C-alpha cells in the first residue's frame, strides 16, 4: 500500500495531506505568537510607564509595505504555476525572496541603530519585547527564505516530474508566508504606533 492523498484531495475532506498539515502548523504558530502577545499585554498593563516614539515609524512603515508587497508576489508566483507560466513563476518567487531580504536589511539597520545607542533587550521591558518579538518574526522570515531558495534551486526539479505536487508545495509556502506577513501586521502597530 502507498500513502494516499499526497497530491490529490481526499474526497470527503477536500484536502490533500500537505495542506491540512500546513494549516495545523499555522494553528500552533498562532498559539506561539498569541502567548507572546499576551505577554506583551500583561507586562504593559502592569508597567508604570511605557516609552513612546523610540522606534522609527518610517522604517517600520517601509517594512510593512515591503512585506505586503511580498505577499502579493507570493500569490502571483502560485497563480503563475496554475496558469502554467513557469517563467513568471520564477520571476515572482525570486521577487518575493528579494523583498524578504530587503526587509531583513532594513531590520538590520534598525537593530544596529538601537544597539549602538545601548538600547538592547536588557535596556527595558519595551526593548526586551521589541527584540524578542521582532527577532522571532525575523527567524520566521529567514525560514521562509530558506524554503523559497529551495524551490528556486534544487526543489524546482519537481515541476517537471509532478507539476501538481509542486504547485501544492508553493501554495503551502504561500500560506506560511502570508501568516508571517500577518504577524508583522500585528507587530507593527503594537510596537511602533501604540
Amino acid at each position, binding site marked *: *500500500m*502507498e*500513502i*494516499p*492523498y499526497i497530491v490529490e484531495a*481526499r474526497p470527503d*475532506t477536500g*484536502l*490533500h*495531506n500537505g495542506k*491540512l*498539515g500546513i494549516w*495545523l*502548523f499555522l*494553528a*500552533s*504558530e498562532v*498559539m*506561539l*505568537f*498569541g*502567548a*507572546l502577545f499576551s*505577554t506583551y499585554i*500583561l*507586562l504593559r498593563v*502592569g*508597567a508604570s510607564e511605557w516609552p513612546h516614539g523610540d522606534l522609527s515609524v518610517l522604517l517600520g512603515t517601509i517594512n510593512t509595505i515591503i512585506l505586503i508587497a511580498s505577499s502579493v508576489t507570493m500569490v502571483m508566483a502560485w497563480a503563475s504555476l496554475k496558469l502554467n507560466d513557469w517563467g513568471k513563476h520564477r520571476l515572482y518567487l525570486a521577487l518575493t525572496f528579494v523583498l524578504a531580504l530587503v526587509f531583513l536589511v532594513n531590520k538590520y539597520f534598525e537593530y544596529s541603530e538601537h544597539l549602538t545607542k545601548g538600547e*538592547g*533587550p*536588557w*535596556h*527595558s*521591558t519595551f526593548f*526586551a519585547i521589541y*527584540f*524578542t518579538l521582532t527577532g*522571532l518574526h525575523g527567524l520566521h522570515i529567514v525560514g521562509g527564505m530558506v524554503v523559497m531558495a529551495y524551490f528556486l534551486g534544487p526543489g524546482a526539479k519537481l515541476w517537471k*516530474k*509532478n507539476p501538481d505536487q509542486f504547485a501544492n508545495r508553493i501554495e503551502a509556502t504561500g500560506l506560511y508566508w502570508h501568516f508571517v506577513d500577518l504577524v508583522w501586521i500585528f507587530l507593527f502597530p503594537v510596537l511602533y504606533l501604540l
Partner: protein
Amino acid sequence: MDNATTLGTVAHGHAHEHAHEELGWWRTYVFSVDHKVIGIQYAVTGLTFLLFGFTLMMIMRWQLAYPGRPIPLIGTWFGQDKAPGGIMLPEFYNQLGAMHGTIMVFLGVVPLAVGGFGNFVMPLQIGAPDMAFPKINMMSYWVYFIGGVVMLLSFFAPGGAAQSGWTSYTPLSVIATSGQTWWLFGMIFLITSSLLGSINFIVTIIQLRAKGLNYMRLPFFVWAQFVTSFLLLLAFPPLEAAGVLQLMDRLAGTSFFEPSGLVVSGKVLTNAGGGNPLLWQHLFWFLAHPEVYVLILPAMGIVAEVIANNTRKPLWGYKAMVYSLIFLGFMSFFVWAHHMFMTGMGTAMSAFFQTTTMIISIPSVVILTSLLLSLWGASIRFTTPMLFALAFLPMFGIGGLTGLPLGLAPPDIHLHDTYYVIGHFHYVVAPGTILALFAGIYYWYPKATGRMMNDMLGRIHFWGTFVCINLVFMPMFIQGLGGMNRRMYDGGMQYAHNQSLLKWNVVIGMAAWTMGLFQLPFIVNFLWSIKHGKRVENDNPWQATTVEWSAPSPPGHGNFAIAPVVYRGPYEYSVPGAPKDFSPQFEPERA
C-alpha cells in the same frame, strides 16, 4: 524491479521509485521512515528514560529515608561536587528532583504513550499504510532524541543539571546555574518534536482512514490519540514562547519574569525590572495542565482496547466516551490556574478556575464509569494485559478523586505543596498511566514481534509492581494531610509536625527499591521474548476486532497487502447470532 512494480509505476503515471528496493541496515533500523520502526524506537527510548527517571527517584528516596547517610553501592560515582563521601548535597537532590519530573513526563511517558503506541498502533488501527508524513515522523523522533541527550548532558554542566523543579518557576530558575539553560534548550527540542508529531497524527487520522472507517467507527484508542495531538499542537507553543522568554532573561539580560528591585542573597539584582514572575506560571501551566491529559488520554485509550477485548463485550457507552473525550480536551485549556491558587492571583480568578476544574472532572468520571460498567456481566479473561488494565481503573480513580480537594481553593490552602499533591498526581500518572502502558506493551507485543510475552513473568511483574506502587504512593496522602512539605531535601525532619510522619519515608523507600527489582522480570521478558517467545498461531492472537489485527505479525513495509475496508464499529464482540464471539471490523458480513 519486478514486473508488478513496473506496471504499477506506469499505471500511476509518475515515477514513484520506492517500496521494493532493499534498504540498508541503517535505513531499516536506525533512520527508518516506517511508522512501526519509529514507534518501536520511541517506545524503547521512552522505556529506557522511564527506568532512568525511576532510578533518580530511587537514589533520592535513600536520602529521604536515611538523611545524611552515604548512598550505598553507587554513592561514590557522583563525585565530590554532587555527593562528597557518597552523601547527597541539597543541590544534587534538587537536580535529581527536577530531572526526575522532566524525564518522566517529557522523555518517558509522553514518548512512550504518544510517540510509541500512537506511532505503532494508530496507523494500523485506521488501516493506513504509514503516517501521512513519514520523513517528518523520523525527524520528530530524532529531534526528541537530541532533546533527551541535551537533558542528560546537562548533568555535566558546571553546577549540574537544572534544579528548579520540572516547573522551572521564575525567578529562581533565572538565577540558577547553567544547567537551566541546557534544560531550556532541551525543552525547545522536545517541543519541536511533539509539534512535528502532533501535526502528523492529526493529518493521518483525518486523511488516511480506511474506506468505511467513519469517525464513530474509530477505536477509542485512535480517538484518544486524536484529542491528545490537538492538546500537544495547541498547548505546547505557549511553553515554547515561555522558554524563549526565560532564555532571553538568562542570556540577553532581559527581565520578563523578574520584578524591579528583586533581592537575591542580600543583593539587589541589577536587571531592568518590570517583569512578572506569575507570567511564567501562567504560560507554563497553560501547557502543563493540558499536558496532564496528554499523559492520561492515551492510557485511557489503551485500557479501553484491552477491556473491550478481554470482556468480550462492546464498550459500554462508546459514544458518550468519545464526546466526553472531546469535551475534556476542550476544557483542559481552561483550568490551568488551579495550580496557582496560592499565588495571590485573586479570589475572582480562583473562583473561575475552581469552577472549570469541577466541570472538567465530569467527562473524566464519564469515561472511567463507562470503562467500569463495561465489566458488568462479562466473563472476563484475566490475561496479563487485562490485569494491568483492570488495575488502572481504581488507580486512576484514586488519582482523580484525590484531585478534587486540590481543585477547590479552600482545601488547597492546606494541601498545596505537600506530599498529598505528589500522591495525587502520581496516582494519575504512575499507577494510572504507567500500568496502562504496561498493559499496552503486553497487548500489542505479539503484533510488533510475532511472539507472545511470557505469561508467568508478566504476572510476577504485575503483582509485584501493583503492590509496591501502592505502598509507595498511599503513605504520601498520610504525610501530605499531616502537613509534610514536598521538595524537602531531608524529608522535612527539622519540623516538629513531621516527626511522626518520617517513618513512612522508610516504608516508601523500601517499596520503591522493591518495585525496582520487580521490573527485572519485565526487562528480561521484553528482551527474551523477541527471539524466544511463543510464536503467535495467527495474526489475531487475542481474537480482537480492530483493524491492526488483520495485518501480518509483524507487519511489513506498507502494513497491508491490500487496502483494508471497514464494515462495522470497533467493538462488536459477542454479537447475537454471529458465528464467533468477535466480529472484526475488517471482515465483511457473511451472507
